[in-house]
């Protein structure tokens, strides 16, 4: 029960300190007066009595101090006092404080940001139930050339579904797209067709309504659709009456039966936000789809493994099934058309592209963190030595050892806290920046947020470093006698160990900075190489729009062609447009592959080639050079012989030594095409991949699954290139022909190129930034070491100068040490680099990981800058007047 009395006292002592002090003074004064009274009563004169009383009372201040000690709020009071003192000390040495805080902040911030990114992108589990059991199965056709992974045919899916022994459940899905019309502006919606088993397999129930039933998979049932949460919110205002409502997709009515929860996403690939499936419809396998096994390979397979089945067992199982159905249908699978299925863990597959990037980032940022901690350690060590003098004096006056140590601890803590605060702010900024400017095709990048556990980890690490290196010198000093420290400028063995430690740390920092810088240099070289790859066409001054002539409103190809031709004609009359061309697939933005067979080759000898349906005049419009033969013309109509134009690579690979013009090939089962021209290569999928063999057809002669898509490329006059009004004029022209045509994705080739290298650019910029930070930190570290060195050797240098050594000589003496440290660091760094070189190799393009020019250039640069950073303290040393230095004891 005593706390009833204790608590108010404590609080009072804390918050009403002046009052309490006053009372103590009054209390003692009362006692003194009483004592004087007594003495006067005994016969002394007041003056004498006063002196006698004071003498008897003893040291009033000491009594007061003891009473204060009894108050036992001392700990808290002392703590605040230490905090105030610590802050004052930090303010007095702005250089040290700013550098230490920045260093810590950089290390913590960068590390937290990268860990957060890695955690979100690589480590966070997928938004499905037990995602580690999910696998995807894709197929390759190894004999058709290339390593392309495709989906499967409908019939193949059914075989896998019915004959497997590894999966608890399977599902199929296919990408789709619809024009959502009927309400407001026509909207292009990305969608996926999924089997009824898919959503239960994923284990995610609908937020509203339900997902599909098995009946809805049957051909001829009423079409139904499930919406994504964001589409429901965006387009339908989150109206709960959406269930049962009918929507028009490609002019067909669909009944909405469900809405999925917000975080749900399927298929889960690196598609950016704008391309994610917003709508799901049932996957319907009509009999002819099942029958035809080789025409279309668009079906994706997802399966949930049985509890104790491994990936390898599943792989063997599906390979077996494939072998089985290939034997059963020899008419479909022969020659080069043989499938090899591949099983991928869902999680790994979706992020496998981002993994090397993430690993690289983590390595880089670990380097930065180490350097940052090392720097802070160095700074603290140096400061510890400077403060030994001050600590010795305070110890001599009477400060308790515990109190001194505690104060050092508090100072270190303060530093860590401020550094941590800076780091947190920086981490938030960095993650935000990455979200805004990062490459669009890294899955889940948009969901990245600062990860609390990463933050905690880095803060704890920096706390430990600060405490260890701030505390250790204090600990050592508190054991030494004050007399040793007070005697002369710190020179004992402690200083030498400190120096050695500091030098070691500085060398390590330089080595790591070198490793990062070389990495950055190599990446930069790669990036420049990629950008200077000859494109095969001219991207400047182009304007691209896409539209879709959906089968519902344009069922007749002839009518569609008329509209397409008219559209191209009208657009070419827009002011400032030099020429207009149409294509179904554009380089660096779409890919579509077809299988073809040379005329006299075996009936099953198919090969892959890229394909695009283009308008006559496409090649000149894109400035793609026609090497032999001719372009498509008006004469290439439906009723005329089928023609095609191929690219250099296809000519080289399949017609070596012969003239391909005039040769023929099959596309599909029967159609025989004559090659009439050869054009230059164009990069299709990415700049850093070789141009694939490609076949062009005239969009007005050939009808394929891709005929609906039309991209229109407008080459512009320089005057019109950045005109804002251009889009509305183009829009008007399109809508003057047909009001319901959706126009989407307007862009330019320059933008497309930039997007295609976005990830590479991102990596390069990041690594270079880290390299710069590491470099800056290493230089600061070196600078600190050299300054400390100069301070230690002040006396010796002063004596040298007094004895006649010239300034340059002294300067050189100091710089020799700096040069030695820099040299050691560079050498170690160069030796270490090969270890890290492996991880960077995957990202490089046409640049060797051991490129000597880059290595030497960067090393020389680093060495030079390091030399400069040691020059400044050296010069400062020579500026000091010898007399002043010698007298300063």
């Amino acid at each position, binding site marked *: 029960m005593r706390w009833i*009395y204790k608590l108010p006292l404590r609080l009072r002592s804390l918050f009403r300190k002046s009052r309490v002090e006053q009372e103590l003074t009054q209390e003692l004064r009362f006692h003194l007066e009483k004592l004087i009274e007594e003495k006067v009563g005994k016969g002394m004169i007041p003056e004498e009595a006063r002196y006698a009383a004071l003498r008897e009372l003893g040291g009033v201040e000491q009594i007061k101090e*003891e009473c204060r000690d009894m108050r036992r709020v001392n700990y808290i009071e002392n703590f605040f006092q230490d905090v105030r003192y610590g802050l004052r000390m930090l303010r007095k040495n702005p250089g040290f404080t700013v550098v230490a805080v920045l260093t810590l902040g950089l290390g913590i911030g960068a590390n937290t940001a990268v860990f957060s990114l890695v955690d979100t992108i690589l480590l966070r589990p997928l938004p499905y139930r037990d995602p580690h059991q999910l696998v995807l199965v894709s197929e390759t056709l190894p004999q058709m050339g290339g390593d392309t992974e495709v989906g499967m045919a409908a019939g193949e899916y059914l075989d896998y579904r019915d004959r497997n022994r590894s999966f608890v459940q399977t599902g199929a899905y296919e990408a789709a797209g619809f024009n959502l019309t009927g309400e407001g502006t026509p909207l292009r919606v990305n969608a996926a067709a999924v089997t009824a088993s898919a959503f239960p397999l994923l284990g995610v129930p609908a937020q509203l309504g339900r997902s599909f039933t098995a009946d809805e998979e049957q051909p001829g049932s009423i079409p139904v659709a499930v919406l994504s949460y964001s589409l429901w919110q965006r387009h339908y205002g989150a109206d709960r009456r959406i269930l049962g409502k009918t929507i028009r997709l490609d002019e067909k009515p669909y009944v909405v039966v469900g809405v999925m929860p917000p975080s749900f996403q399927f298929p889960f690939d690196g598609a950016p936000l704008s391309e994610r499936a917003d709508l799901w419809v049932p996957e319907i396998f009509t009999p002819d789809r099942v029958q035809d096994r080789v025409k279309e390979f668009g079906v994706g397979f997802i399966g949930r493994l049985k509890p104790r089945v491994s990936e390898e067992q599943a792989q063997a199982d599906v390979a077996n099934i494939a072998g089985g159905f290939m034997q059963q249908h020899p008419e479909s699978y022969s020659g080069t058309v043989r499938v090899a299925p591949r099983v991928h863990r869902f999680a790994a597959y979706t992020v496998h592209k981002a993994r090397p990037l993430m690993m690289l980032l983590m390595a880089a940022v670990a380097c930065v963190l180490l350097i940052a901690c090392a720097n802070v350690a160095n700074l603290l060590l140096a400061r510890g030595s400077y403060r030994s003098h001050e600590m010795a004096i305070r110890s001599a006056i009477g400060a308790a050892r515990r109190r001194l140590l505690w104060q050092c601890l508090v100072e270190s803590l303060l530093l860590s806290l401020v550094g941590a605060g800076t780091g947190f702010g920086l981490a938030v900024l960095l993650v935000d920046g990455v979200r805004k400017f990062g490459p669009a095709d890294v899955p889940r990048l948009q969901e990245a947020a600062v990860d609390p556990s990463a933050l905690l980890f880095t803060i704890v690490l920096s706390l430990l470093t600060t405490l260890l290196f701030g505390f250790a010198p204090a600990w050592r000093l508190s054991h030494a006698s004050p007399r040793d420290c007070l005697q002369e400028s710190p020179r004992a063995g402690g200083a030498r160990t400190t120096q050695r430690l500091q030098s070691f740390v500085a060398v390590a920092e330089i080595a790591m900075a070198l490793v990062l810088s070389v990495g950055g240099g190599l990446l930069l070289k790669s990036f420049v190489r990629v950008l200077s790859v000859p494109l095969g066409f001219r991207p400047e001054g182009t304007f691209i729009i896409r539209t879709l002539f959906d089968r519902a409103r344009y069922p007749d190809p002839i009518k569609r062609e008329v509209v397409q031709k008219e559209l191209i004609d009208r657009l070419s009359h827009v002011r400032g447009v030099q020429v207009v061309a149409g294509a179904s697939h554009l380089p660096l933005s779409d890919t579509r592959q077809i299988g073809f067979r040379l005329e006299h080759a075996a009936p099953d000898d198919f090969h892959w080639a890229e394909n695009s349906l283009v308008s006559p005049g496409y090649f000149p419009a894109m400035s793609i050079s026609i090497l032999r033969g001719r372009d498509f013309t008006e004469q290439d109509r439906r009723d005329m012989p089928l023609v095609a134009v191929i690219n250099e690579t296809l000519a080289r690979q399949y017609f070596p030594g012969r003239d391909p013009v005039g040769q023929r090939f099959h596309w599909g089962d029967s159609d025989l095409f004559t090659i009439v021209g050869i054009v230059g290569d164009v990069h299709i999928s990415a700049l850093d991949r070789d141009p694939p063999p490609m076949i062009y057809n005239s969009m007005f002669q050939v009808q394929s699954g891709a005929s609906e898509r039309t991209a229109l490329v407008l080459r512009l006059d320089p005057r019109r290139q950045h005109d804002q009004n251009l889009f509305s004029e183009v829009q008007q022209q399109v809508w003057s022909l047909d009001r319901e045509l959706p126009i989407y994705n307007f862009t330019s080739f320059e933008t497309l190129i930039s997007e295609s290298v976005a990830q590479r650019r991102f990596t390069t910029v990041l690594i270079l930034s880290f390299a710069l930070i590491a470099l800056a930190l290493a230089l600061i570290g070196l600078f600190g070491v050299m300054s400390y060195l100069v301070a230690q050797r002040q006396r010796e240098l002063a004596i040298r100068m007094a004895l006649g050594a010239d300034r340059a000589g002294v300067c050189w003496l100091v710089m020799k040490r700096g040069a030695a440290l820099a040299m050691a660091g560079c050498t170690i760094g160069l030796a270490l680099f090969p270890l890290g070189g492996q991880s960077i190799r995957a990202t490089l393009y046409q640049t060797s990981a051991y490129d000597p020019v880059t290595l030497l250039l960067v090393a020389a640069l680093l060495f030079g800058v390091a030399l400069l950073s040691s020059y400044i303290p050296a010069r400062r040393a020579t500026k000091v007047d010898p007399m002043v230095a010698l007298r300063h004891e």
Partner: protein
Amino acid sequence: MSKPTDLVQGTLDLLILKTLALEPMHGWGIAQRIRQVSKEVLQVNQGALYPALHRLEQSGWIRAKWGESDNNRRAKFYSLTPAGRKYLGQEEANWLRLSAAIGLVLETT
């Protein structure tokens, strides 16, 4: 003046608490009372008295109140808390037991 016997801290606490058991008193009064009752043997050192009083207050055995002294001057009066009263009883018993034991030892040897 005879040399005041130095009092061990615990003993001083006991004396103070006992003195306050009778009536609330200020520091000066406590010192006077102890001197008087012990027939001038125990002279409490002021340097020890006030720290002891403050310690006892902080521990919750006694509490303080400002009041008027006999000549109308403000003084800080201490009094026992209930817990303090109980504590006094315990310490008194301990002390008597201890001194009896010491007495026994001194008698026999």
